């Protein structure tokens, strides 16, 4: 029994907050159809010129493609490293587990600007010895993104592992399974979903990363967020509105699909 069902006042306040949360996302839609070259709201004439600009100016496609490449490489590396680490902590339960996890989560809790300066220092130091993983290269950005997103993968995979029943692993061990069999045949199938979630979240985090990317790129490794940043700083380019509408539509589609899938699954489970 719900003895404290929110009353009308709470509902009104929450509706106001909901409007506040959605307002800026809705606001970019009319702006993206403006016929002018500056940020404005179209009154009579609506135009698709800024959407056309997204297709005609190759910089947008190049930026998006670079971001996808960096995101795939960084999320796979980060999830792999995080998986090994979390498995090690879970299976061996070392004495200083808390401290070790704390170190692994450091880039997530430190102020992003401090991480950015640290990674800037790291990459300009690397630039002195090679030109591949260096300042303003795609490999350098991918490496920096691994540092920033790996902690999130550690959190998600550790949460998934915490829900695995240790007795399954003990049973496999007592029946003579080696460490390899235990990991591949027993533990991994149980945390499959956590690993996929970690891959997805780390990809999204890399795809939209801007704080660190600003410090470690200049003219060559221009990711999509970096390109948007350049269009936002001085004269605001309405093409930013068009790309924003595209990105918002993508997120809305994913979130709605996910919610619908979860609901239908829950309903099926209720029936079963």
């Amino acid at each position, binding site marked *: 029994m719900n003895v404290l069902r929110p009353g009308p006042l709470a509902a009104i306040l929450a509706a106001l907050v909901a409007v506040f949360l959605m307002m800026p996302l809705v606001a970019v839609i009319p702006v993206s159809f403006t016929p002018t070259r500056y940020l404005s709201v179209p009154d009579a004439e609506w135009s698709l010129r800024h959407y056309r600009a997204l297709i005609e100016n190759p910089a947008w496609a190049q930026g998006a493609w670079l971001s996808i490449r960096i995101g795939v490489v960084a999320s796979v590396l980060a999830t792999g490293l995080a998986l090994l680490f979390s498995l090690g902590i879970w299976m061996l339960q070392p004495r200083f587990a808390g401290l070790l996890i704390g170190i692994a989560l450091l880039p997530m809790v430190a102020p992003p600007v401090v991480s950015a300066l640290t990674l800037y220092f790291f990459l300009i130091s690397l630039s002195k010895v090679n030109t591949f993983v260096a300042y303003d290269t795609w490999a350098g950005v991918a490496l*920096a993104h691994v540092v920033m997103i790996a902690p999130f993968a550690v959190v998600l995979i550790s949460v998934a592992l915490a829900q695995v029943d240790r007795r399954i692993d003990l049973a496999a061990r007592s029946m003579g399974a080696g460490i390899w069999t235990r990991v591949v045949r027993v533990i991994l199938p149980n945390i499959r979903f956590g690993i996929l979630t970690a891959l997805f979240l780390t990809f999204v985090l890399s795809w939209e990363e801007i704080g660190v990317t600003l410090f470690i790129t200049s003219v060559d490794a221009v990711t999509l967020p970096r390109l948007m940043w350049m269009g936002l700083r001085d004269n605001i380019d309405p093409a930013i509105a068009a790309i924003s509408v595209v990105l918002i539509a993508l997120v809305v589609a994913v979130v709605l699909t996910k919610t619908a899938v979860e609901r239908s699954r829950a309903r099926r489970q209720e029936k079963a």
Partner: protein
Amino acid sequence: MSHPSRFLLLIGPLLLFLAATYLVPFLGVMRWSVTLPASGLGQYKAALGDPLVLTVFWRTLRICAAVTVGAVAAAYVVTLLWVRGGPMQRLVVELCILIPFWISVLTRAFGWLALLSNKGLINGWLQALGVLSEPLTLVRNEFGVVVGMTHFLIPFAVFPLASAMRSLDERVLMAARGMGASRARVFWQVFVPMTRAGILGAALVVFVFALGFFVTPAILGGGRSVMVAELIYLRIFQSPDWGLGAAISVILMAGVGLLLAALMRQVRQGASR
């Protein structure tokens, strides 16, 4: 395979990776702060004695405090509906939290620019209605920064609040109601105090995140309300004084470290109670 070698093979890679890419370079940043341009603690003295830097620190604290109060209060209301509302309310609230949460900070800052700038939607409406003759300055000042940051951080405050509201003992509420307390009284004198840990956790998360914010203040502050993160960026890239930028970073890191230590103590006390 012996125990220690397995340990290193599993736990080693990530820790070695972070040591090489993060811990050692951070020591390098610390070295910058005491060697550039001259060795010694001059940069720290300069940072803490420079009125400009102190203005920025003070403004950062002020903005973060306002954002924390705003974001936690707004998050409390929506979380209440998310946890205790009817099925329809839950669905709407969930979508309004999750959709902005997944959208990038740049898009969200741009959305506020589209709403609040001089030629933006709000000024357009107010002028069309005849309420205003001159556009209101809503952006490129502290107001715009606070609005944009509050918007960004509300979802982060929702998660600790939701876990606090979900884990409280329902029977206490029933007992209070059964003994004749009104719903308002149950809410203010029983429910809110029982979610105190969640409120504190949410406030600390929001405050710590807000301290290091860079993108939103840079876009919505328009160079006029510079916060500490943007100041570091400017000291590194625009009027290069790497030593000062590094010193401010170390001070910021130390401040956040202290706050997190306080959070950990809070959590541990909560667990032992």
